[in-house]
């Protein structure tokens, strides 16, 4: 513990005495983290957008006009028992006809003159997302089609397929971008800390010459790396918060009306904590690699 307190104190005075090199490191780390967080921010918000689109993947079950109460409740049980179904809504015969006439309001007179309602009642099922959702839908559609009281089923197979592919693409793309960013981030941190150690080469050598314990030599640098990364990450969170607040003021309203129910949100708190923990870890890892390699090579 005493070692750590001392390491902290020394790290602090080291930072003070070469504030220029440290500022460079911190700014670089800040920029790297900002980019990572911007990406997280976009991801968090895209996710809720996708959620909205997701609702549009649905299976429509058209019911016979003559469906019996019993058949219908069998059907509803069947649906309720299918664990893939996320939500169900019932559109009655009357509702469907009203909707239809609204769409063709200019032809209202003609349609009214029909004298009867040609449209069926229907059940609209939303499926929870999973990678084999399409298969689940197809299978359930077959089952339902065979039921009494079902006139036909409809689920826009090709549209769903396309949407699934798009989601898969999006996820892979985001993963690739995120991976690249994280690798870049660790590289940048380890490199800036290497430079910081490099600029204090003589000091490290001298400590060893004067009889310092290896751990005593290492800890201030580990501490310094962690402090730098932590400060960089905190600053970046500040930067991103500002960007977020600006965007929110500017776009919340129009976005909300465009994608119903969407609400621009900040990086979740849990993620912010992960980021800070991650910064400490990367700072530690970067310093550790550099200082150990340095001690091995420079001290013979």
């Amino acid at each position, binding site marked *: 513990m005493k070692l750590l307190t*001392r390491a902290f104190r*020394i790290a602090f005075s080291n930072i003070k*005495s*070469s504030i220029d090199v440290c500022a460079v490191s911190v700014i670089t780390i800040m920029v790297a983290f900002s980019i990572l967080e911007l990406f997280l921010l976009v991801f968090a918000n895209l996710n809720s957008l996708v959620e909205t689109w997701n609702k549009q993947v649905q299976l429509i079950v058209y019911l016979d006009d003559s469906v019996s109460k019993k058949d219908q409740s069998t059907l509803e049980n069947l649906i309720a028992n299918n664990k893939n179904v996320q939500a169900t809504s019932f559109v009655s015969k009357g509702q469907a006809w009203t909707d239809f006439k609204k769409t063709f309001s200019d032809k209202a007179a003609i349609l009214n003159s029909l004298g009867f309602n040609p449209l069926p009642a229907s059940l609209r099922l939303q499926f929870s997302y999973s990678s084999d959702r399409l298969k689940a839908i197809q299978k359930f559609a077959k089952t339902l089609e065979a039921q009494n009281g079902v006139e036909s089923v409809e689920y826009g197979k090709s549209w769903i397929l396309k949407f699934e592919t798009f989601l898969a693409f999006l996820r892979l793309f985001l993963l690739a971008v995120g991976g690249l960013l994280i690798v870049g981030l660790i590289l940048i941190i380890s490199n800036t800390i290497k430079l910081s150690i490099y600029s204090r080469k*003589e*000091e490290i050598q*001298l*400590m*060893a*010459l*004067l*009889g*310092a*314990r*290896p751990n*005593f030599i290492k800890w201030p640098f580990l501490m310094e790396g962690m402090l730098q990364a932590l400060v960089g990450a905190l600053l970046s969170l500040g930067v991103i918060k500002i960007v977020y607040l600006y965007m929110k003021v500017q776009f919340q309203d129009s976005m909300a009306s465009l994608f119903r129910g969407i609400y621009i949100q900040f990086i979740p708190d849990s993620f912010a904590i992960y980021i800070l923990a991650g910064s400490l870890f990367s700072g530690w890892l970067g310093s550790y690699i550099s200082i150990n390699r340095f001690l091995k090579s420079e001290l*013979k």
Partner: protein
Amino acid sequence: MIQIFNLYKTYKGNTQALIDISLEIKSGEFVFLTGQSGAGKSTLLKILYSWENFDKGQILINGINIAKIREDNQYTLRRKIGVVFQDYRLLPRKTVFENISFAQEAVESPSERIRFKTWEALKKVGLTQKKDSFPLQLAGGEQQRVAIARALVNSPEILLADEPTGNLDPEIALEILKLFEHANSQGVTVIFATHSAEMLKARDYRVINLGKGRLISTK
């Protein structure tokens, strides 16, 4: 007690820096180490505090074979030894005061004592006025005295001084010599490397004379 048996050291690039050196220096002794430039004086001192390794031979310091000390534990050896480096090795971004404190921090001295001991060491070498200067703001001889203060501050058992008066005028050089003698009078073993004929003449200590890596005489 430092015992050296048949020591050989060859640097990469095939410079034979030390050839078959055998020596004994008693605890509490004061010896001069002399020889032409390139004779191997610095190399010998570096080997004693484990900064360079050697090829053949054996070195015992207080009966401990220094080649057998694990790298992780070399610090135990170095804590017994105070070194004045030929090129001073002061940290340019620390003040004189901080440079001397640094040596005590490195060996984890209790922080209460650091200020006091630093001040005492500065008084010994006559540099209290320069305590807040940075090394590059000092004259050459002043830097050298800071290096000496740093070597003394941890009260080592052995003092290795590599040309500690090269940049000092004869008067101050003598003052500095007296500092080493004072430490010596309290039981510290001193090895004092020097070119200066005046120094060698000024006192009647044993002179170890190296020439092109070989031991020429130990008078």
